[in-house]
């Protein structure tokens, strides 16, 4: 390969795909390398597809606002249907503790210009048909948020990036990142050596291993979460629903679900004890626990037919905050890693941000927000994110 690339993106997943698109749109010659056989075949396809800007962390709010804009206008901009559905997010509340926590961040969210409000129990019951009303105190609703099909998006985003000139090579695990002094000169795989002066690490759950090729200690450790999907029913549920209560079974921290545009209910929970590791095989524990939580919240869901379950990885950082930054030790190296399970919704915003950093040297978001997602922050200084 004699031709030099402007930038090589390592990873064709939630962060890499939209980054490649944004870079290609800026006129760069982009090569994307992935060890898997196709786009989005790592953790990307395990995402349930929820997209919300209603976080409490400023960087995530800003990046996801950008993502929402890109997702919601995707079809008009790029032509492909990605299953976009603007149904909002709803956090129904049954306990005083959760109410206090959500109410406390509402002003921050409103100040950030987010469309979110506290609704009374009747409104929540209208929004989430069939929800148990006993003990229901109300909840938050953010109608601007929505859902996308991660499967369709991977295909569409790769297609869009290719149409802007990006190239994709699959089944190519990166084995070395060559340097001359402190400058990146090439990316090497068993299949070839790709000369470039810039490399973006967007390697998801493999970020630590790829970071090591640059001599970096990238503090990303995957833990796993299981998800599932039912057969389709006629649309009846607009928002993605998040129940922040810990489960009575003592194993779940919260759980969430929504009806995608196909009409399928897609669901997931956060285990109370994180399961660290790269294991992606389903366990027998998941379905009984999640089913119990689902039908206890909305009894009519019991008639749904469960179709498939799976397990995906959250590439976690020690403080639970993502990393988007320019590497200082190696010139030409950039990081978009540690998406902490929200890579899908963050992806397009991160992609635009990192493309701006690579081409113009400045992020798309405010400097103080950007500083919070720096690779050089103190990862062990506890940052409290109220609404993970």
């Amino acid at each position, binding site marked *: 390969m004699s031709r030099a690339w402007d930038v090589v993106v390592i990873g064709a997943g939630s962060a890499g795909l939209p980054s490649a698109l944004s870079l290609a749109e800026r006129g760069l010659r982009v090569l994307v390398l992935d060890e898997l*056989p196709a786009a989005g075949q790592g953790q990307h396809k395990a995402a349930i597809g929820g997209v919300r800007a209603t976080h409490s962390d400023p960087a995530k709010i800003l990046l996801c606002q950008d993502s929402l804009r890109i997702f919601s206008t995707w079809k008009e901009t790029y032509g492909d249907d990605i299953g976009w559905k603007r149904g909002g997010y709803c956090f129904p509340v049954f306990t005083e503790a959760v109410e206090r926590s959500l109410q406390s961040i509402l002003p921050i969210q409103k100040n950030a210009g987010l469309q979110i409000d506290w609704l009374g129990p009747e409104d929540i019951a209208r929004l989430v048909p069939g929800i148990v009303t006993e003990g229901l105190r109300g909840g938050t609703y953010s109608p601007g948020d929505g859902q996308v099909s991660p499967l369709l998006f991977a295909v569409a985003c790769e297609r869009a990036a290719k149409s802007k000139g990006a190239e994709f090579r699959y089944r190519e695990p990166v084995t070395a990142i060559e340097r001359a002094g402190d400058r990146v000169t090439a990316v090497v795989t068993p299949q070839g050596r790709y000369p470039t002066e810039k490399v973006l690490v967007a390697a998801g759950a493999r970020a630590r291993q790829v970071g090591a090729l640059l001599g970096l200690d990238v503090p990303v450790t995957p833990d796993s979460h299981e998800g599932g999907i*039912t057969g389709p029913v006629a649309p009846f549920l607009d928002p993605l629903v998040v129940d922040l209560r810990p489960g009575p079974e003592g194993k779940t921290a919260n759980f969430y679900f929504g009806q995608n545009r196909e009409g399928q209910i897609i669901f997931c929970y956060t285990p109370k004890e994180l399961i660290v590791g790269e294991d992606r095989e389903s366990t027998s524990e998941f379905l009984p626990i999640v089913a119990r939580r689902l039908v206890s919240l909305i009894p009519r869901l019991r008639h749904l*037919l*469960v179709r498939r*379950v799976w397990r995906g990885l959250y590439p976690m950082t020690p403080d639970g905050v993502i990393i988007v930054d320019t590497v200082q030790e190696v010139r030409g190296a950039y990081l978009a890693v540690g998406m902490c399970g929200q890579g899908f919704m963050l992806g397009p915003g991160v992609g635009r941000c990192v493309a701006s950093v690579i081409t113009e040297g400045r992020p798309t978001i405010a400097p103080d927000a950007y500083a919070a997602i720096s690779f050089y922050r103190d990862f062990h200084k506890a940052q409290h994110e109220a609404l993970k």
Partner: protein
Amino acid sequence: MTARRTSARRAQPGGRIERHPILSAGGPATVEFRFAGRPLLAREGEVISSALYAAGVRIFGRHHRDGRPLGIYCVNGQCSQCTVLADGRPVKACMTVVRPGMRVEPVAGRPQLGADDRLPPSGPGIREVRVPVLVVGGGPAGISAAIELGRAGIRTLLIDDKQALGGKLTLQTHTFFGSVADCYAGTRGIDIAAILERDLAALPDVEVWLDASAVGIFEDRAVGVVRGGRYAVVRPEALLVAAGAREKALVFPGGDLPGVYGAGAFQTLVNRDLVRPTKRLFVLGGGNVGLIGAYHALQAGIEVVGLVEALPRCGGYKVHEDKIRRLGVPVWTSHTVLRAEGREELERVVTARVDERFRPVPGTERVYEVDTLLVAVGLSPVDEILQKARQYGMRAWAAGDSEEIAEASAAIFSGRIAGRRIAESFGVPVRAPEKWTQTAAVLRSKPGREVPFAPPAAAGRAVYPVIRCVQEIPCNPCTQVCPVGSISIPDGTITSPPVFAGDCLGCGRCAGICPGLAIVLVEEDHDPTRRTAVVTVPFEFGDDRLPRSGRVVTTGFEGEVVGAGRIAGVRQRADQDRRRLVRLEVPWDDRLRVAGFRVQEPPAEAAAAFDPALQDDPVICLCERVRRSEVVAAIRGGVRDLNQLKAAVRLGMGGCGGKRCMELVRRVFREEGIDPGEITPGTWRPLDREVPLAVFADVADAGDTTEDPK
């Protein structure tokens, strides 16, 4: 209903089989239910799909993507084509028993989720079962393995997803090949099932769960089992997968029409539920499954318009092919079904001859009016759970079709051997005899070479058998029944053709037992003037299929018309299990040629003209209605990963999990010239079939939906 019929042509479409030569008709239909508001009756314990077919209903709903009609496809709980709303819940019609007063509605588009939000009381909790051995599948292999395990004193749980044990044996009304001593040759499949079940019942260490499906296997070495609507997590020390096979499919335009389905579905409707699903049947595929399907159809009073096989000769046993030919079924080799046609349901099929590369030859198209096309183009093992169990480091074995596709007799041996091996792994010294392995290999063998038919040396005697067993197949019942020991296999095997030498008492036992219906008796002393002789032929139909005139069209062994015959009498011995021996008086010169007679006349071609301009884009993925052109476009766009194909066009994303289309799509890749080595296989994940959330949540899902939707 005892009206005598000479032709199946008078049979009604839909309806129940009131008379069957082998099976006893079920009880009356007394269970009242409604479909789309229309009052109907089901038999006690009957599933919705069979009750609807009995009422002539073939369209159960419409697909939410394109509004096309949906009906049955697998009748085995594997796909979700037959989904209906039963009392407001989406269910598989083929797996759901009709309850009195049930309100069944077609699913038009995506089903509405009923607005009943009263949470039913919780069950007793999800059962965790620890057991030394779990056997998945209660067919011939699974039962045989469980018998060996039970005899070895190893606690075993055998699960099967049907309401009765026996697997596909329960659908096999014909007598089996094989060895009498080893695997019940000469006995009907339905009766073998009963024998195996009886042997199993005597073993206290084996527990049987019916209506119990293995819906998933998980990395914590647990098998999720749904039994009668309740969930159990089974943790076996050893797992035997004897889950059988699933039918392959073929891609052709119109293949998605109601009325196009597999042989398993057909046999379930006809032989298990005694429903007559069709008036005029066409069969695609000349393997044993298709050939036997045609035979079962004839026995059920269904007209079999024809059978096509793409290969130059049928892959099934020649005796199976010949017996349907003799009865009047045309068999066209080097032919295929080009397309199926019909507005809402199957109305006709177009066949064509194919060249040596299986390409249709233009100008050879023929059109037949039929209401049903039985697709029998091969089987593939159901072994996903096995692969995962091995990946998870479990002690896992396979038996029967899950190990290798073969006859049920081979599955019995495969199961016995697996059972012994598992027992040995628990330290019980019960090594399987070496002979079993050899017998299993013999029983698995494909039909062997054909030997030329030699005219009987006995001709000229008063009475003698004519044995037209001309293909090497593992079978020996005829050698076991001759009271004077005149029939033997000279080389001592069970595969070489048997030979008659010695005396013949004319008892007809050989003709009465030969599973291939390949033995007839010739009586030369019938007519001293030697103008006529009597040929006694086996006949597995009722008296109602004998013409009142007594006049029949006689056929030779391979179905060629010989001439005219007259029924001179019908013999039935107690030891001739539901088989009659029909004595045909035939012209003297026909005596060595006649082997049977027709029960139907070969059909005429339809008047409808073939329209070569008519092109339809065949559906590959029935669940998500993905058409071939979409797959081709994706392949040409560079897709080589089946997971990516799923993402891009939703192929394999439906209720069946790609069981049918994942194999079909490989053929499309091949047709596009893609090297199979380039293709990344799809990932298999639980569940193996769709299960209501209620089952996992341990709350009731049925019988609690009587309140009106708000």
